[in-house]
């Protein structure tokens, strides 16, 4: 029987809703299992190495580079108004409110999120998850939950490191290369940043992005199709979906809480 375009649309919509429902169920399962993590502390430490320590280099280098660029761009704009002593506020506010959490999340998606999806989906291909189930070990408990939780724990830490190194990069360019007074830089930085809105907002953003990347990467890994193209598809769609949702969620967090 020929499928009409309207039937086709209906099928797509049904599939989309089904996928959303599966993702929600998966989220609830992972949340339930994450409460058991004290018994899996060893696994969490191993995964923190993969997500956190191995992402350190890229996050640190990017943080310094972004801070230096912000210092340069901010200085060039501010100097026109003779306000170059507020360079610290410009660099600090942009890093803490937006660039720190968002760029860190995007970098970690590319570095660690893709690795998680690839690892789990290749376990699906080689039927390792089925093997675990045969030994009555829940793969969500042993494999998925520690990876997801490590991502959630590591993201705020990496984001804070990114911001602090970025502030250092801005200081380097502003004070040593462009001749802004170091004391002015730090005073305007301290004056502009408030704990309750700016710093807390930044940490909440990083935490939400950590949860997003963790769930998307593990879900895409577990539901990968069991062939080699499935691995590449899972990895690619993890990076694409996670990056887009980070940027969309960033808008809504900013709009709703004004951070």
């Amino acid at each position, binding site marked *: 029987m020929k499928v009409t375009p309207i039937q086709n649309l209906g099928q797509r919509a049904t599939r989309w809703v089904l996928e959303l429902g599966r993702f929600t169920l998966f989220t609830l399962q992972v949340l339930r299992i994450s409460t058991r993590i004290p018994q899996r502390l060893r696994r969490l430490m*191993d995964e*923190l190495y993969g997500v956190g320590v191995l992402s350190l280099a890229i996050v640190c280098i990017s943080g310094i580079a972004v801070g230096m660029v912000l210092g340069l761009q901010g200085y060039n704009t501010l100097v026109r108004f003779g306000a170059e002593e507020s360079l610290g506020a410009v660099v600090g506010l942009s890093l803490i409110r937006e660039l720190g959490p968002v760029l860190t999340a995007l970098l970690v998606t590319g570095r660690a999120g893709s690795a998680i999806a690839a690892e789990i989906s290749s376990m699906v291909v080689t039927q390792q998850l089925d093997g675990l189930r045969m030994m009555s070990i829940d793969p969500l408990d042993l494999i998925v939950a520690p990876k997801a939780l490590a991502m959630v724990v590591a993201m*705020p*830490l990496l984001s804070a490191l990114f911001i602090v190194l970025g502030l250092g990069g801005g200081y380097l360019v502003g004070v040593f290369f462009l001749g802004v007074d170091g004391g002015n830089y730090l005073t305007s930085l301290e004056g502009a940043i408030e704990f*309750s809105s700016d*710093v807390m907002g930044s*940490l909440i953003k990083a935490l939400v992005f950590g949860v997003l990347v963790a769930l998307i990467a593990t879900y895409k890994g577990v539901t990968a199709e069991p062939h080699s193209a499935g691995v590449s598809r899972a990895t690619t769609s993890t990076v694409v979906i996670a990056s887009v949702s980070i940027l969309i969620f960033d808008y809504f967090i900013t709009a709703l809480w004004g951070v």
Partner: protein
Amino acid sequence: MYHSPVRDLLVGIFVLFGLASIAYLSVSLGGASYRGPGGLELIATFDQVGGLKVRAQVVVGGVKLGQVSAITLDEDLRARVELNIDDQVKLPTDTSASILTAGMLGDQYIELEPGGEEEFLNPGDEIQYTQSALILERMIGKLVQNLGVDSSE
């Protein structure tokens, strides 16, 4: 799985540096520790606070002593500003408060000028003598008006 101690050490260092960064952002930059109670709370009422904001500086003789903790309207529709300053400082009861601007377009802050009374302000007391913020636009407006009057004569 083999667990290497070096790996655990690296994870530990990573977590430590991350937490240190969060602490630096919160305490040193965000001033999370500075807002604790125990400071001296004073109240000052102004007709006009201009662009004064919560967390603006409160200074005596140019030295920072505290910050503005709240700005509200009282029942007479005047601006009621709460100041939170260092409780080690003893201010005379005839201290005056004025809202000043740092530089031409800078942030506004409150300057306290101690008087000569023997008695000191207690927590919750109101500062009697206040001077409102000067608003640049109004001053320019008046200036232009006056100039207009002068030239028409």
